[in-house]
């Protein structure tokens, strides 16, 4: 806590000017700033400038969409859901197709056992790498501090 006379005579109020402008100071701090402002034309000028800036920013248009458009955006959430269903179906089909091809390859009497072993080894390696990357991404996703935020 600052000494009132020190603020009053020697120092400018600094960041407390913003707190004062926003009504976020304690009553005691507010009185100190009042006292300082009574004597300091520089801080009074800065306060006026900050007030004008705040009003200009508050009155400007930044977003640009109206409430109805955001309501429609919420109604579009079905698109997100259908995209999710699409991905699930695609993955399921891919798993079935790949599984069938593996079974056909392993049961093909025309391919020598040695080749089956080598090719199987190659694809098993690829699969392990893929699963490893997938696992890493999953862990990152689950521990992401920006996901599912609750205050």
């Amino acid at each position, binding site marked *: 806590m600052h000494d009132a006379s020190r603020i009053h005579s020697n120092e400018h109020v600094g960041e407390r000017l*913003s707190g004062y402008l926003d009504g*976020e100071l304690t009553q005691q701090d507010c009185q100190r700033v009042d006292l300082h402002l009574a004597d300091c034309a520089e801080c009074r000028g800065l306060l006026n400038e900050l007030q004008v800036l705040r009003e200009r*920013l508050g*009155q400007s248009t*930044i977003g640009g969409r109206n*409430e109805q458009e955001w309501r429609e955006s919420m109604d579009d959430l079905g698109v997100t859901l259908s995209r999710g269903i699409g991905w699930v179906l695609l993955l399921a089909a891919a798993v079935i197709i790949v599984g069938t091809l593996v079974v056909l390859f392993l049961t093909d009497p025309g391919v020598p056992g040695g080749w089956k072993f080598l090719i199987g080894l190659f694809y098993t390696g690829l699969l392990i790498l893929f699963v490893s990357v997938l696992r890493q991404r999953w862990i990152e996703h689950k521990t992401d501090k920006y996901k599912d935020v609750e205050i």
Partner: protein
Amino acid sequence: MRQELAQLGNGAHALAIQILGNREDAADAVHDAYATVLSRPGAYDSARGAFKPWFLRVVRNRCIDLLRRRRPSGVDIDSLSHPGVAPDQRVEELQRDVAVHAALAALAPDQRQILVLRDYLDLAYAEIAAVLDIAPGTVMSRLHRARLALKQQMEQNHA
């Protein structure tokens, strides 16, 4: 809840623009936040604070997530400077908006966010701290620095 979310859309979009620097990506972030919130309506606990800062925090975190994935090349000042303008909007207001947005675009993302949260969305310091995930005691100093930076930038642009 849908009504409240629709009302918060514009403010959330304004915040997302400051983070992503792009109006379309910002709209996507708000859309994603809607999906998150509506799919888990129980995630919000009214005992732990107001809905507005909570939703803005969800939007902000979604923006950070998108930013990490997309890495935009920079702030698109045009996208910040030309919001959907109503035909009858006065020229004076347009000029005012363009001047504010141009100055805002020149600031650091953290400064843009805190200015929008306080001066555009009118959040209290405690709510700003919750949205930005910073200590409540640092809001005043950060905000003051951001305001001084905005003032300086506007003076430079005007000169």
